[in-house]
């Protein structure tokens, strides 16, 4: 469904992506990990066409979006939703209006239909009754939930998560992770997440890919990933001591 071939990108004279080859499995949760400044968010933005590569191909369901623009790109983007690092809620609108926004703008829905769908999504993310609040009145975790509700409301095929738990305390981070996994399992969308939360992401991701020096150096199901023999990768993922990959017993360095 999502396939990157030889993607290269230079920003401010610095090469960030140096030939990324990556295939994202359909209907699964894939997490991209890597050191700070390794280009994970840049890679994510390429998948939805917010950035365009200097070289390479980005295939979304058989369409190369690498140099696509305008109406053609917007057609592909209809399959996507994205949860940004700080939720990117429109601060002049209430939570309700934020979640309703894609329904009103893209599907031109009105009235009771919108109210029903928005309240359903707010309930699913644990924000029932909060629709009247503005983003500035919400905590960080609530903003993320509202952003997730907005991402889910159009029932997209693919959702991208850019560090969804950055800046949250461990309990709140776990609740957001649990919510993402629950939504993904319920709605079966393809999820691509960028995260620093090691070792937690191994317990919730189906696949893990590591970005280093501008390339994907390892990509595997999370239970296989932890068995890697690459010393650098092992040092990175076992930094917290133990890892419990999805469906398997705890592993350690």
């Amino acid at each position, binding site marked *: 469904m999502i396939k990157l071939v030889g993607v290269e990108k230079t920003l401010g004279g610095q090469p960030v992506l140096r030939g990324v080859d990556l295939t994202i499995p359909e209907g699964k949760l894939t997490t991209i990990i890597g050191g700070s400044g390794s280009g994970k968010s840049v890679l994510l933005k390429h998948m939805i066409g*917010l950035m365009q590569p200097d070289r390479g191909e980005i295939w979304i369901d058989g369409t190369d979006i690498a140099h696509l623009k305008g109406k053609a790109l917007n057609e592909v983007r209809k399959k996507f939703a994205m949860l940004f690092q700080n939720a990117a809620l429109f601060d002049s609108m209430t939570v309700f209006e934020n979640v309703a926004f894609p329904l009103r703008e*893209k599907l031109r829905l009105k009235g009771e239909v919108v109210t029903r769908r928005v309240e359903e999504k707010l309930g699913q993310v644990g924000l029932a009754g909060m629709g009247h609040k503005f983003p500035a009145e919400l905590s960080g975790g609530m903003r993320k939930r509202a952003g997730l509700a907005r991402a889910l409301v159009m029932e997209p095929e693919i959702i991208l998560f850019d560090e969804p738990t950055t800046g949250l305390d461990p309990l709140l981070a776990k609740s957001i992770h649990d919510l993402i996994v629950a939504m993904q399992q319920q709605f079966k969308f393809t999820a691509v997440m960028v995260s620093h939360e090691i070792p937690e992401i191994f317990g919730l991701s189906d696949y893990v890919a590591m970005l280093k020096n501008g390339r994907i150096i390892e990509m595997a199901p999370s239970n296989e990933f932890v068995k890697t023999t690459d010393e650098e990768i092992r040092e990175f993922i076992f930094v917290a001591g133990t890892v419990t990959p999805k469906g398997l017993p705890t592993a350690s360095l």
Partner: protein
Amino acid sequence: MEGIARIGRYTIDLTEQMGRMMLFVLSSFAWLTRPPFRVYQIVKQLNFIGYKSTFVVVLTAVFTGMVLALQGHYTLRKFGSEAVLGSAVALSIIRELGPVLAALMVTARAGSAMTAEIGIMRITEQIDALDTMAINPLQYLIGPKLVASLIAVPLLVALFDVVGIYGGYVVGVQLLNGNEGAYWSSIESAVEWKDVYGGILKSISFGLLISWVCCYKGFHTKHSAEGLGTATTEAVVLSAVLILVWDYFLTSVLL
């Protein structure tokens, strides 16, 4: 050699920026012609740029007219020409001070706010969020501001003209005991249609300049608080400078 290279680099950067600004405004207008037509956003911006600038424009107009009348009265009295005070105030305001000062007030109030609003949306990825929802930010955010500015600024300039002339009347006639009939009749005989449409032409072009520059600077804000501050300052300064420069060129063409 380094100095020449620096001049060259600066010239290339400046030309590039001018090209980007032109593409920015042309794309925004082009997107406005495609549905959905953002009538609600245009009305909302008319309220913000137009209605909410009324107070500051009226205040500026009143005092401008009053000081013009004050200065004009004592200057004209030296030549025994107090009777033409009305035309002096009216022509100054309609031809120059109305469009320029109203535009500068709108720049300071609404222009800076536009830059800050769009800049914050850029920094907090709200513009990226629009893109990911396949909603063109130029159509949704920028276009309505351009259209509203083109409508609101000429109306504010017209308001400035009326209030400024009346402010001049209050000082020139009521306070300084000038001749009321002479005040209004001198305006009637001196002000011509070309003065009025010259003012309208200026106000429309100033409206475009303000929203164009301020929206562009906000849209291309660098991702930091300092970047936002820089963008807002640059937007206001550049808008003000361009208003004054363009005013000179238009005046030289119109006269």
